[in-house]
């Protein structure tokens, strides 16, 4: 089978793309030149809109449309780049940051030009210290060659990038929490509206774009919206990096055309399952997404096809679980994650998340009872949809989906007063 010709990951693994000369040798900064010398900001924005690029951070909102919401009222506008990747099972931005920093810089500069931003803020997850250092060095190299700072490439366009290191909080990946965090506050999401386009960073009109999203921009400018729009499904086209982890032979980041079947991703790219194992469940869009199962393997990996299966593409964290996996144990790690990461503002998330995590842990420890099972199967309605931000709504999807699919497995934990998978878990660890 012919592999998709990588766009965002091109050269990674063969060339050191943290070296500006190597990046330029691959055609780097040609799109910036083209945008600044040959295109108006409106034309750049039009091209991105026409490409149908949808945000790669999780929500899949059309990028051009997001940009178009900025009011034309003369206030300074800010562009914030979200590199706070922490969605369980997602590790693509980590790779782009450490191995393709100039692509991010070029994408940010073109985007800032398109929206007439006053400044760019790059928010990098605190744990990505190495990536932070690589990015800072890349900024220095870009500045030395006139790609950053005053009068970029001799044009009237001046721009700088402020790098802000996070300090450990998953919730800061939510765009309004990120703005609070840059402002030096607790990373608590804001009530929307107002949306960041109207009242964002320091109360000014702000766009927050994900690392992978901005990395697409130079390619759209260089090769044209039509080229981008022709890859994959019409309504959510383009190349997409999927982070594949869990029980596959070759876990890794794979760049694929949006919409390829889940089966192809697992078998052709990730080397398939381990010999003798059967697929049990997949989380297709990070820890927040509901599971899909064997019968869904022909589903396309894209925003709309997965939404039709009542789950999501999300951030593209694709976690594969084979038949040695205990669904209660898997649910335990994820509910504990959300319990730990809740900012505590909304009661259903703060309290509900805590109780759910406790009940699942109890089941896994063999101390659960029938009433826990009843509560877990009905609590979705009171937790989901009752919070300020998507974190609270992320607690239940996976748990509910596997509880519906494998009710007997949860019941066995009560009946046997323990985890029947202990042996299975040990076997999966040894592999």
């Amino acid at each position, binding site marked *: 089978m012919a592999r998709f010709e990588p766009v965002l990951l091109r050269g990674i693994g063969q060339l050191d793309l943290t070296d500006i000369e190597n990046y330029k040798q691959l055609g780097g900064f040609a799109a910036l030149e083209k945008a600044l010398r040959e295109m108006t900001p409106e034309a750049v924005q039009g091209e991105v809109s026409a490409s149908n690029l949808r945000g790669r951070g999780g929500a899949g909102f059309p990028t051009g449309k997001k940009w178009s919401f900025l009011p034309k009222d003369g206030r300074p506008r800010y562009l914030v780049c979200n590199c706070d*990747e*922490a*969605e*369980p*099972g*997602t*590790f693509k*931005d*980590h790779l782009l940051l450490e191995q393709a920093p100039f692509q991010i810089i070029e994408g940010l500069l073109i985007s800032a030009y398109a929206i007439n931003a006053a*400044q760019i803020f790059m928010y990098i997850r*605190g*744990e*990505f*210290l*190495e990536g932070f*250092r690589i990015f*800072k060095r890349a900024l220095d190299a870009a500045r030395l060659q006139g790609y950053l700072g005053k009068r970029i490439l001799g044009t009237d366009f001046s721009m700088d990038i*402020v790098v*802000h*290191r*996070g*300090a*450990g*909080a*998953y919730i800061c990946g939510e765009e309004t929490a990120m703005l609070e*965090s*840059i*402002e*030096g*506050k*607790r*990373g*608590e999401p804001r009530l929307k509206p107002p949306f960041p386009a109207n009242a964002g960073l*320091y109360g000014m009109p702000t766009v927050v774009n994900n690392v992978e999203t901005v990395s697409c921009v130079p390619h759209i400018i260089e090769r044209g919206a039509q080229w981008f729009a022709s890859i994959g499904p019409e309504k959510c086209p383009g190349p997409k990096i999927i*982070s*594949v*982890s*869990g*029980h596959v032979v070759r*876990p*890794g*980041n794979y760049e694929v055309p949006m919409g390829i079947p889940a089966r192809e991703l697992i078998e052709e790219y990730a080397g398939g399952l381990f010999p003798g194992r059967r697929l049990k469940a997949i*989380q297709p869009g990070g*820890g927040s997404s509901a599971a899909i199962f064997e019968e869904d393997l022909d589903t396309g990996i894209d925003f709309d096809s997965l939404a039709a299966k009542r789950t999501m593409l999300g951030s593209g*964290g694709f*976690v594969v*679980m084979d038949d040695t*996996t205990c669904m209660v*144990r*898997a649910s335990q*790690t*994820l509910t*504990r*994650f959300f319990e*730990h*990461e809740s900012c505590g503002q909304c009661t259903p998330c703060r309290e509900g998340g805590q109780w759910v995590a406790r009940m699942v842990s109890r089941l896994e420890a063999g101390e659960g009872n029938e009433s826990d099972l009843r509560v877990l199967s009905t609590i979705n309605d009171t937790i989901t949809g009752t919070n300020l931000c998507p974190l609270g709504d992320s607690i239940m999807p996976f748990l509910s989906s596997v509880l519906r699919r494998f009710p007997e497995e949860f019941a066995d934990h009560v009946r046997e007063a323990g985890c029947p998978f202990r042996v299975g*878990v040990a076997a*999966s*660890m*040894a592999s």
Partner: protein
Amino acid sequence: MTPERERRASELVARYPESQSALIPFLQFCQAHDGYVTQQAIHDAAEIAGITPGEAESIASFYTLLFKEPVGKHKIQVCRTLSCMLRGADELQQHVRQRLGLGNGESSPDGRFYYEEVECLAACDRAPCLQHNLEFHYDVTPEDFDRLLDEWRASDPGVSMPAE
């Protein structure tokens, strides 16, 4: 405030449209030297941001990479979330706890080691993974850990939570 900290504070304040944005980077800078966020650092940060020390403390307490009390110099943070769990994190954690003689969130009495089980580190294709003073180690087997531990035991990490 020491002259060095004053210098850093003014650099940070100049970097942002509003001075409170300097709060977290300033605390990170102080922590790199002090090993944790001291009360003095909280007071200095509050002054820079123009807020009360209580507010500064509340903000600092929100972030897991800002330590509120002294912790061991070698900070070992092992991922515990789903993808690592599927590829041996339980076994690794058990081994690390036993080798260090520490539970989750504990520091050794001699102040050399700190152990924590943390949430997804975004390195799920090379699971199980851990960070040592924010440096990644991937695909870590118990044997790999023993080798790393020997190295760490023989070294003094100095600035163990670098700010930059």
